């Protein structure tokens, strides 16, 4: 233990605790900018400077461990002046178009400038004239707004292991860009959007498509379309944060009500098509596991960022990939076929929107020809949780005080298995609940597979299904997947039995609840709360296994015949292609 003082307050913390963390424990706030709880501190910005005793030397609180006997001062006139200078210097290379900025009102630099009462430009403006990169159609990189804090680089390289961006150049010419200055879309970027979720300013953000959706909702006359929307499991536990609620507050039925007030004609839930995914993917797993039809391990494919990563970095695993489409795409296909038929609507007259916690879903909706299985683009536009929050605010909808409403039938009601898709381990848990039934023809007594839940990066579990052991692994946060796949590769190369039968991968830490399109400010504490919201929703569900969803039964009976049928394959399955890391 270390004994020291911060602003005269005695502190006792474990050895190795940084001054920043120690200060937080005694309710002393030290301003910071480059620091982020998900990342190792690297002292780039210099806002968090503090002093020790009478020493004039300034220490960076984010990366200096508190030592015995220290007498830390976090605020005096000189420190405030120094921080102010740092902010002014950053502002001297930062455009002043805050009012048109995607982060207006939710920007860490803007907040600091406001707190420090910056009223004038003390240094001459030196803008760099760097071009914006919109090549991915999902994430926009505007290096002109970049303050070079380095969070995005750390996230992309250390957390995600993708290495799409790096600091290029040096000194004042330093900028964030892909290697060789290729466009983002031509390099390793997997569109996970974690850079955008961690950027403190408006330098990396989601492509805003709210206007396209507003246009569709407003259109009247012969060009008007039936506007249909689906919301993903993870949205319901995070959207509330944009309206002041605690992370993890489940507001599903208020979201349905808000979507109806926005003008959508039919509201469906992606948790329903998650149930559908389980029927298809679960059947695929059982087939591979019980017969020799297809290689093991089976690897989940719901996460489009992960799909993109696999196609670039692990194309040798393509045969192991589940061919089942993601819930977003399954719902898209079903809306423009099954539902269009039921509602006697011409599929070309349907405008299909999805609300996702994810930026990569914007990429997925045109990933390949299979995403046009209805003969139209199955999902026309994907909005992130952040975009939906903006639409609700623009429409002046008081979402928190709306009455609860139900989704439309039959692709609305979902099971607990469908909703847990939103958290890491959820797809695995949902699949196991139904695989057990498909193999044994019996339902589980306890459907909770707690071994695959939680924030740990790689989770392993063994599940006993009537005398056989099913070995599963769950990995989330892209940088954690390599070790899992390397073990599979090694076992294959040595001709040994593969270590797992079934592997679930989600690109974002915590799974979709921590997605790149979710409200800003995500930390592990926030992720845990959102996860708790997901599992609470699961617990209170009437049905907790996908195969028990009566509407799933109805959809197969009326339309799809049975899991894995010819029709199901045409609409609900896809294929993958080897891709170069750099085009």
């Amino acid at each position, binding site marked *: 233990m270390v004994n020291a003082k911060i602003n005269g307050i005695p502190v006792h913390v474990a050895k190795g605790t940084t001054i920043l963390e120690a200060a937080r424990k005694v309710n002393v706030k030290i301003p910071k900018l480059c620091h982020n709880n998900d990342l190792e501190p690297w002292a780039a910005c210099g806002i968090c400077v503090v002093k020790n005793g009478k020493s004039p030397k300034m220490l960076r609180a984010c990366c200096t461990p508190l030592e015995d006997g220290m007498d830390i001062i976090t605020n005096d006139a000189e420190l405030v002046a120094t921080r102010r200078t740092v902010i002014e210097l950053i502002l001297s290379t930062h455009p002043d178009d805050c009012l048109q900025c995607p982060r207006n009102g939710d920007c860490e630099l803007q907040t600091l400038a406001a707190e420090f009462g910056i009223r004038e430009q003390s240094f001459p403006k030196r803008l760099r004239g760097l071009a914006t990169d919109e090549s991915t159609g999902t994430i926009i990189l505007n290096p002109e707004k970049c303050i070079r804090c380095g969070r995005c680089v750390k996230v992309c*390289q250390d957390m995600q292991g993708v*290495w*799409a*961006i*790096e*600091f*290029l*150049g*040096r000194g004042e010419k330093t900028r964030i860009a*892909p*290697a*060789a200055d290729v466009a983002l879309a031509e*390099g*390793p970027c997997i569109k996970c959007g974690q850079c955008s979720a961690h950027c403190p300013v408006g330098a990396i953000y989601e492509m805003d498509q709210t206007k396209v959706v507003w246009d569709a909702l407003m259109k009247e006359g012969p060009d008007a379309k039936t506007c249909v929307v689906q919301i993903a499991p993870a949205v319901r536990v995070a959207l509330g944060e944009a309206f002041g609620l605690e992370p993890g507050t489940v507001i599903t039925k208020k979201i349905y009500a808000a979507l109806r007030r926005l003008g959508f004609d039919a509201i469906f839930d992606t948790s329903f098509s998650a149930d559908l995914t389980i029927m298809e993917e679960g059947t695929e797993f059982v087939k591979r596991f019980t017969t020799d039809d297809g290689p093991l391990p089976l690897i989940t494919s719901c996460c489009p960022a992960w799909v993109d990563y696999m196609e670039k970095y692990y194309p040798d695993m393509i045969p192991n990939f589940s061919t089942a489409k993601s819930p977003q795409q399954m719902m898209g296909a079903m809306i423009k076929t099954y539902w269009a038929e039921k509602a006697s609507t011409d599929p070309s007259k349907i405008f299909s929107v999805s609300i996702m916690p994810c930026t990569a879903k914007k990429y997925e909706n045109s990933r390949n020809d299979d995403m046009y299985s209805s003969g139209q683009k199955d999902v026309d536009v994907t909005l992130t949780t952040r975009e939906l929050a903006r639409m609700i605010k623009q429409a002046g909808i008081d979402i928190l005080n709306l009455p609860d409403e139900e989704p439309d039938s039959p692709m609305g009601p979902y099971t607990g298995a469908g909703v847990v898709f939103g958290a890491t381990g959820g797809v695995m848990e949902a699949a196991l609940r139904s695989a057990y039934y498909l193999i044994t023809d019996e339902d589980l007594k306890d459907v909770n597979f707690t071994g695959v839940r939680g924030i740990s990066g790689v989770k392993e579990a063994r599940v006993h299904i009537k005398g056989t052991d099913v070995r599963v692994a769950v990995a989330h946060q892209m940088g954690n997947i390599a070790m899992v796949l390397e073990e599979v590769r090694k076992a294959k190369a040595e001709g040994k039995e593969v270590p797992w039968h079934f592997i679930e991968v989600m690109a974002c830490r915590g799974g979709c609840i921590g997605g790149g399109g979710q409200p800003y400010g995500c930390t592990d504490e926030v992720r845990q709360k959102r996860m708790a919201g997901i599992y609470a929703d699961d617990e209170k569900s009437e049905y907790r296994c996908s195969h028990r969803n009566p509407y799933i039964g109805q959809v197969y009976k009326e339309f799809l015949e049975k899991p894995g049928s010819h029709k199901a394959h045409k609409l609900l399955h896809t294929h993958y292609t080897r891709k170069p*890391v*750099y085009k």
Partner: protein
Amino acid sequence: MAAVQTEFSADLVRFIEEWKRKPGSLIMMLHRIQEEFGYISRESAETLAKMIDMPMAKIYGVVTFYHFFKTTKPGKNRLAVCMGTACYLKGGQTLIEECESILNINAGEVTDDGQFSIDSVRCVGCCGLAPVLMVGNDVYGKLTKDQLPEIIAKYRN
């Protein structure tokens, strides 16, 4: 234009293979590549990335950090005008401007025929000869701008 020469020589390959597992060898390998090709082309960076199993982004982070490394092919004759303190005070800037005017390109650019490029460099280590111009490995010291047309002419073709 001739296709970019990308194939690493046997020597270069041997060198990289020898050092690739030792941490901190990247800069040394890049030096050898630049020695062989005159610059680090994207193709060379890709080849190196594959050989040493390192992300391209990491390689480019290093290549663009150091002025020494070039990502575009320099002219056959590289004019390096010293802008170290001594040369700067003795008129290095005038030499650069004269070179630019003779060759009709800016510093950092290459002539259309690929014969010449101009770079401003920091101290080349012979301040007693200031101001200094290097063409390839040849050093010209105590220069005045009217000597430049003749020097450049020597290297044409």
